[in-house]
């Protein structure tokens, strides 16, 4: 087959609805884009440098495209991709807020990007100062004592937190006896997975009719084999766990620790703090609350902050402010060890740092206020149209159910989601949390305006009034329509070469 035409643009939605060829389809033998600097280094041949048993017979096939086609290919792909910069993204639990452009720029300064992670401390005083400042601020925001910035995402933070929990119990001689971690049934899937990888057993505790942890049920689970509990507050229904103080006391009473999943921290910035609620370990998703962009699925950053007793166990080395005012590395006394190749997703940390510096303390509180205001306004606006299983004041997000719609119109949550794409919005999170049937979890974030919320509400109202047959056709506006997920799994094609 002859190579595809790199300059034909019908795959850009501006121009058409065609498929975009892959890099491999675009390849023509011998074509290339790369050029290499003149170095003056002697031009030994490969076989002078590598013994025959190690040397490849053939170059590894990558692709053979011109720079022009490469750029056009990825530019067209970018036009086939929704993003916050195109419009609202009310994906519950994901906090898809606008990512300020200034943070992009702060994190692309050569003095930050071109620093080797193994450089001696004399050469990284700027980085260390930034990390220490960020750590201190995150501790202030969460009400904790010390933090590690190494975990590169929320789930990594969770696992780090669980290992801290384990290290603490072990140090206290209870490593073998504490075997269970309690998780509410509304928890995000990473929580139980992390518990398992942390070597613990999961005990699920049910939510009560208010959508919160059932404190009595919890009490029944609690015993001295409990290592701790993982909660997010507000929880994944967007509801504040009002009994948190009681929960904390109960867990602490049996010697357990409280772990805070910080995915929902955006709701409470400057309003209340996990540390003040009694949590011992807190992870944050800087790619949610602190505007690190999601990058289509990362990189994020999932720092973990802890109470004083847990600080000696933190991963090391930790950036530290030294007595002489300079910065260095510190290895916590009883450190669980490294959790990252280097120092965490440093440039993501720099973005979050710049976001915090821009907002300041007051700005962060305003973030929370407006996030919560938006979510409550929208819940009010959708009342009577969608079922709202927990229809009470929510925090930054809320969950509606399409159960009634399904019954009345045959519309499922997935249909609402696909129709919403046609209305110019990304879909909410669907079918999560698991405790709500036909769940649609909506998190508008604080950066969307009242007008955007109104338009989103109008779209959701119109969709609810529509019929299922029509909705099943959705989306009809996108470059591909509903994709055959079953086939993808059944006839797995994980690479171009597997076709």
């Amino acid at each position: 087959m002859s190579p595809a035409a790199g300059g034909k643009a019908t795959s850009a939605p501006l121009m058409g609805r065609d498929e975009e060829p892959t890099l491999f389809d675009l390849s023509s033998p011998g074509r290339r884009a790369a050029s290499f600097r003149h170095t003056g280094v002697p031009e030994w041949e490969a076989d002078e440098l590598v013994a025959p048993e190690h040397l490849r017979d053939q170059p590894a096939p990558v692709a053979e495209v011109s720079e022009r086609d490469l750029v056009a290919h990825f530019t067209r792909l970018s036009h086939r991709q929704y993003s916050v910069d195109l419009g609202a993204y009310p994906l519950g639990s994901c906090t898809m807020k606008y990512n300020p452009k200034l943070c992009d720029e702060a994190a692309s300064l050569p003095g930050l990007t071109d620093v080797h992670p193994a450089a001696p401390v004399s050469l990284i005083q700027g980085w260390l100062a930034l990390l220490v400042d960020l750590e201190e601020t995150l501790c202030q925001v969460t009400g904790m004592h010390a933090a590690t910035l190494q975990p590169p995402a929320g789930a990594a933070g969770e696992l780090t937190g669980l290992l801290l929990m384990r290290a603490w119990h072990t140090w206290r001689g209870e490593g073998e006896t504490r075997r269970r971690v309690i998780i509410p049934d509304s928890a995000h899937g990473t929580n139980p997975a992390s518990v398992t990888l942390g070597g613990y057993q999961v005990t699920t505790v049910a939510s009560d009719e208010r959508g919160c942890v059932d404190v009595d049920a919890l009490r029944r689970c609690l015993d001295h084999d409990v290592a701790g509990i993982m909660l997010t507050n507000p929880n994944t229904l967007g509801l504040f766990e009002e009994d948190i103080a009681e929960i904390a006391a109960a867990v602490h009473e049996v010697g357990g620790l409280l772990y805070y999943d910080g995915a929902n921290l955006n709701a409470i910035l400057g309003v209340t703090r996990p540390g003040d609620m009694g949590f011992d370990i807190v992870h944050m998703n800087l790619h949610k609350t602190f505007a690190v962009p999601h990058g289509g699925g990362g990189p994020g950053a999932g720092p973990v902050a802890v109470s004083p007793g847990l600080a000696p166990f933190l991963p090391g080395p930790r950036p530290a402010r030294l007595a002489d005012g300079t910065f260095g590395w510190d290895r916590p006394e009883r450190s669980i060890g490294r959790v990252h190749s280097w120092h965490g997703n440093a440039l993501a940390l720099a973005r979050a740092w710049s976001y915090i510096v821009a907002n300041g303390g007051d700005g962060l509180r305003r973030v929370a206020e407006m996030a919560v205001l938006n979510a409550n306004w929208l819940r009010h606006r959708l009342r009577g149209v969608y079922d709202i299983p927990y229809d009470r004041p929510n925090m930054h997000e809320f969950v509606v159910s399409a159960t009634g719609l399904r019954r009345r119109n045959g519309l499922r949550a997935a249909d609402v989601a696909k129709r919403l794409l046609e209305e110019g919005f990304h879909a909410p999170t669907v079918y999560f949390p698991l405790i709500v049937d036909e769940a649609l979890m909506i998190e508008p974030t604080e950066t969307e305006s009242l007008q955007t919320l109104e338009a989103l509400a109008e779209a959701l109202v119109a969709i609810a009034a529509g019929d299922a047959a029509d909705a099943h056709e959705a989306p009809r506006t996108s470059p591909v329509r509903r994709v055959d997920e079953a086939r993808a799994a059944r006839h797995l094609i994980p690479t171009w070469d597997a076709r």
Partner: protein
Amino acid sequence: MADFVPHTDAEVAAMLATIGLSSLDELFAVIPEALRLAGGLDVAPGLSEADVLDRAALVAAANGAAGRDLVCFAGGGAYDHDVPAVVRRVAFRSEFVTAYTPYQPEVAQGVLQALFEYQTVVCRLFGMEVANASLYDGASACVEAANLAVAATGRSTVWVSRGVHPHWRQVLATFAGGTGHDLVDVPLVDGTTAWPDDVPTDAPDPRSEGRSGPPGALLVQYPNHLGCIEDLAAAAEVARRTGALLLVACDPVSVGLLRSPGDHGADVVVGEGQPFGTPLSFGGPYLGMFACTRDLVRRLPGRLVGETVDVDGRRAYVTTLRTREQDIRREKASSNVCTNQTLIAVAAIVHLGWLGTAGLREMALRCARGTRYARQAVLGIDGIEPLAGAPVLREFAVRLPVAADVAVERMADEGFLAGIALGPEYTGDGPADGLLIAVTERRTRAEIDAYATALEKVVSLS
């Protein structure tokens, strides 16, 4: 102060009225009084955009940056390669940067197709059949590889070559604290891994350390932390004999010249993808590459993009085999990875596309040439000896006549990041005199010559 919230006072008032509240504080009425933060956060007031950028610039000025301040000869999994402009201009288009994980594939074909292409090239480089959409970094990829192997073999012992990056081994150890894997340290002899059967009789047999059963996996780095090219054929043979899976942590640049681990029979190949499209970045975000054979696909950690069609029969991409993932398997999941490093994978495929087949080979070749040239120059210096005898490709280790960290500090004054001081696990009980030196395609002959001159001066100071 910079403000990213659109609400005007009038709008806030109207919205509060709609929901029946009279103040913003009432939004938080459900929070018990005692838990509410009195007096607000003790965080400095916000700054304007210009002030933030000024502050960031001050911070950045306080670092020693490769290129700007220093000529970089440090590597160890973090290499100073040229990143072409296309990566910055195309991979970081805002559609890629500000998207979430592709949950709605109809409007996420951009990220999905880019990942599919990335997976394809990862497989091609490593000689594997399936690759995931990325993990956090080289270390996490090693951890996931070990977890996969233990689950697949039902054996919890993992033999880990000491040639694996020390930080990665440390991370393996940290997470083994949760999984309970038994990590067995396998020493190097003259630069390459001495698997038990080859171990000189006076070295302890790792299998004899008591609690360890037969290995579920062997993990070896290629080339290893000292830059030496491991004998993967031998490792594969040990794996075959012991019934373990062969896990290879592979430098993805080196396979531009070297035979792929898959060619040698590896079961899982992981790597640190930083060399493709990612600057040094003080160590992150980097890119955990992960590939395996097809029969291990159901144990593959993280996200996997597959090709399919839409209802109209158009080619389309989607994340697939999602039943492996933590959001569905929950406590039964064998990995908890959710957010990964997608954007870095996109940067990698853009850089790889730019390099192309010939360019990747040339990049590797140029690294190897520079390394050869630098090694000759450095070993020509009085008092500097090779740390290991095995052949190297893009990095090499030497013993200095002075402590390596001292040499690194002094070399910084000369304008060089001289390399990475090696720990006692490589240098033994003697002085900490080991230095790991990496040479990329960026380094010119003049820079290497100047480096050698400076190093000669620096090591001759007492």
